[in-house]
C-alpha cells in the first residue's frame, strides 16, 4: 500500500467538486500527475495542485493506494465517489457526496460530513466519526434502485431521508436520526442506536430497521407481532417486532407474505 497525502493549502471560495480524489484515479500516477488531475470550483476547472499539496505517489492499483486528506476539507465534495478499492482517510470534516456510488474499499472521515454521503452505494465501507447530513445511504434523486451493499457507520447523528429505496447493505447510526428512514426500502438493514424522529419505514416493502431509542411519531402502517431476541452489531438484545408497511405491496415467498421488519429495543 502506497500513501498519497493531500494537504489543503488554499481553501476554495466556493466548493471543490473532488470526484477525481479516488484511489482509482490516483493509482499508477506520480505525485505530479496527481496534482494535475482536474477538480472544479463552481464552473471553473483547475488542477488539484491549485488547492492541495500532493506528497507521495499512487500504488500500482486502486487497491494498493491510500489517500490521506489533511486540512479543513469542509468545502470539498465527492471524495471517493465511485471508488472500487483502496482507502481514503479524511483527517477532519468533508462536504457532500463522500463515498457516493462507492463499489469497494474504505473511507474513514474523522469529522463530520454533509448530505448525500454513501448515496447509491454498492459495496465497501464508509466510516464517519462525527455526524452525517441528509440522504445518507439514500438513492440518488429519482432513482428507485438505492443502496445495494456495503456498510455505512456514523458515530454521531444523521439527518433526514436515510436509506431511501435501500435494497441491500447496512447503515449503522450511533446517535439519532431525523425523519424518513428506509422509505420505499426493499432490503438491507438500518440500525439507529439513538432516537428516530418519525416516518420510519414509510412505504417499505422488505428489509429491516432497528431503533434502540424511541420513535417520536411512529407510522400507523406498522403492526406489533411479538418480541424477539437478536444479536445486532455484536450485542444481543430484546426487541419488539413490528411488520409493515401494511399500506404497501408485499411479495409472497413460499406461500407467505414478506413484510419489512421494524424492531424497537425493549
Amino acid at each position: 500500500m502506497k500513501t498519497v497525502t493531500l494537504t489543503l493549502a488554499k481553501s476554495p471560495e466556493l466548493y471543490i467538486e473532488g470526484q477525481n480524489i479516488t484511489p482509482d484515479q490516483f493509482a499508477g500516477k506520480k505525485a505530479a500527475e496527481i496534482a494535475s488531475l482536474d477538480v472544479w470550483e463552481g464552473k471553473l476547472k483547475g488542477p488539484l495542485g491549485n488547492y492541495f499539496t500532493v506528497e507521495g505517489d499512487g500504488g500500482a492499483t486502486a487497491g494498493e493506494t491510500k489517500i490521506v486528506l489533511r486540512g479543513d476539507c469542509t468545502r470539498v465534495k465527492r471524495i471517493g465517489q465511485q471508488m472500487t478499492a483502496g482507502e481514503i482517510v479524511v483527517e477532519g470534516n468533508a462536504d457532500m457526496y463522500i463515498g457516493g456510488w462507492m463499489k469497494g474499499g474504505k473511507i474513514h472521515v474523522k469529522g463530520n460530513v454533509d448530505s448525500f454521503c454513501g448515496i447509491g452505494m454498492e459495496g465497501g465501507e464508509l466510516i464517519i466519526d462525527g455526524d452525517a447530513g441528509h440522504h445518507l445511504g439514500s438513492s440518488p434523486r429519482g432513482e428507485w434502485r438505492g443502496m445495494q451493499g456495503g456498510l455505512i457507520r456514523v458515530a454521531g447523528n444523521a439527518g433526514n431521508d436515510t436509506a431511501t429505496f435501500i435494497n441491500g447493505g447496512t447503515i449503522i447510526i450511533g446517535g439519532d436520526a431525523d425523519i424518513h428512514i428506509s422509505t420505499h426500502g426493499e432490503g438491507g438493514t438500518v440500525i439507529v442506536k439513538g432516537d428516530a424522529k418519525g416516518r420510519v419505514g414509510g412505504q417499505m416493502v422488505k428489509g429491516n430497521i432497528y431503533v434502540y431509542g424511541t420513535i417520536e411519531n411512529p407510522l400507523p402502517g406498522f403492526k406489533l407481532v411479538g418480541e424477539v431476541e437478536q444479536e445486532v452489531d455484536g450485542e444481543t438484545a430484546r426487541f419488539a417486532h413490528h411488520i409493515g408497511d401494511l399500506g404497501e405491496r408485499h411479495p409472497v415467498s413460499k406461500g407467505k407474505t414478506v413484510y419489512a421488519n421494524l424492531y424497537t429495543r425493549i
Partner: protein
Amino acid sequence: MNELIVKNGFVFDPLQGIKGDRMDIGIKDGKFVETSALGNPKVIDAAGKTVMAGGVDIHSHVVGPKVNVGRLFRPEDKLFKSPLKRGNRMEMGFSVPSTFKTGYDYARMGYVFVNEAAMPPLHSPHVHEEIRDTPIIDNAAMPVFGNNWFTLEYLKNNEIENNAAYTAWLLRATRGFAIKVVNPGGTEAWGWGLNCESIHDPVPYFDITPAKIVTGLIETNEHLGLPHSVHLHCNNLGNPGNYTDTLDSLKLAEGYTAKNNFGREQVLHITHIQFDSYGGDSWRTFESKAEEIMDYVNAHDNITVDIGQVTLDETTTMTADGPFEHSLRGLNNLKWANTDVELETAAGVVPYVYSPNIRVCTIQWAVGLELALFAKDPMRTFISTDHPNAGPFFRYPRVIKWLMSREARDTTMKTFKWLERTIDATSIDGIDRELTLYEIAQMTRAGPAKALGISNTYGGLVPGMDANVAIYALNPEDMPSDPEMIEKAFSQCAYLIKDGVVAVQNGEVVAEPAKRTVWVDVKVPDNAQVQRDIYEHFLRHYSVGVENYKLFDEHVHNPRAIEVDATQ
C-alpha cells in the same frame, strides 16, 4: 451562390427508383438541382459511400409537456450520462434527452424531419417552444383528436363537415400537422376510471364507439384532403391477445380511399403496431401475432404502419393512453405520472426496463422485427421505436443492423435468458430475410415522407426538393462482414447536408442550419355552427379564454405552412 456537388456515391432514392447507382447529386441554394445547372460547386467526395435523402421520422415523442414530465421526473436518466458538450449546447439525458441532444442526435443519424407524435392542443405553446429549442431538424406536431369533446360530439351526430371545420380550426390554433388518435374514446373513459378495450366499447357519457370515432376521423381527413392520414394508436394497446382488436381497427379503413393532392395513398396509419400484435390470453401465454397482422397489412394498400421496435433498453414510456400507463405501473411498480388535459386528452409517464432476461420483453423485440421482415411493401412499413416508449430513437441504427443482418439478430438472441421460449412464441428464428439498403431507404425516408404527404419536399433527391442528404460510410459493393459496422455507419453519418448546408461531418455536428416548423393550413367554408360551438365550450368548460388558447404567431418558429384548400 451556395453550390455543392456530392460526387460518386452509391445513391439510393426510392422516390425515383434509384437503387445504388453511382451518381452525382447537385445542390444549389438549399435545393436539389441537375448537376448541369451548377457553376463552380464545392465537392463532397462520396466515393465508396451510401447516399440517401435525409431521414424522415413519422412517429417520435420529442417535444411537449409529457416529454418534459419524463425529463423532470427522471433525473436518474441523466446521471453520469450527460458528460459531454459535443455540439454548440450541452447535451443531457438518455431515454428522454434534452431538446439540444435530440436535434443533434437525429442529425448525427442523418435525419432531417421528425413528426412529434402527440400534441395536447391545450399545451401546444409548450410544444412549439420546445420545437424552437430542438436544433437542425424540421418538426411537425400532431394534435390529438380521438378523445376531444368537440370531435366526439360531432362524430356521434355524423356531422363530418362540422368536424372538418373544427379540425381545420384546431390545426391552425395549434399549428398542428395531422389528425392523431390515441386509444380513441379510451382516454376520455379514463377520466371516469374506465377504458375502451375494444372498438365497440362505448365511451361513457358521449355514447360513441371507438369504431365510429376512427371512421368519422377518416372521413373528416379525406373530406379535407390533408397531407397525412389519420394516425392511430389502437385500443387495447400492449395487452396479450390484442391482435384481434388491432385487426378490427385495421378493417375500419376498408372501403376508404385517399383523397389528397400530396401523393399519399393510405387512409390510416397505425403507429407502433408492435404493441398491437400480441396473441395469448395472459402474460404466461403471451406470443407473437406479427404474421397475422402483416398478412392483413400486406393485402391492403390503403394502410401504412410503423413498427415501434423494442430496443432492450431502460427507457421511459409516455403516451396519451392514460389507462395503459396506469396498467403498466401496476406491472412494474415504478413511479407514475398521470394527467388530464381538459376536454381533450390525458397522459401518463412510467419508466420501463426492457430486459433481455424477461420473456415478454424478448418476445416484444422479436415481434417488432418480424413486422418489418414480413413486410411485402417497405414503402408502407416504417422503422420507429415510438421513441421513447419502446426505446430511444438513437437506436434506429441498431434496429437497421438487426433488420439487415441475421447474424446480428442471432448475436442479440444469444443474450436472452428465455431464448427457447422466445423462439417458441415467435417466428423470428425462422426468418432469414436481410433487408437491403434500398429497403432501409424506403422504410426510413421515402416511405414515411410519402405517408406524411411531404414527399414533394422531403425523403428524396429529386431536383426542386429541399437539399437534405445523408451520406453513410457503407460501400454497398463491399458491405462490412461485421454487422456492428452497419450500426456505427448509421449512428455517425459521414455527412448530413441540411438545406444545402453541411450540418454533420464524421458523426459530429459542425453547423446548425435553420430548422422549421411544418404545419397544415386548411381553408374551409365559414361555419357559423362550429364558431358558436367553440365560443360555447370556451365559455362554459375551458379554463382559458379562446384568444389565449390559440397560438400567437411569435410562438411558431420559422413556419412552413402546407396549404390545403377545402372550400370546394
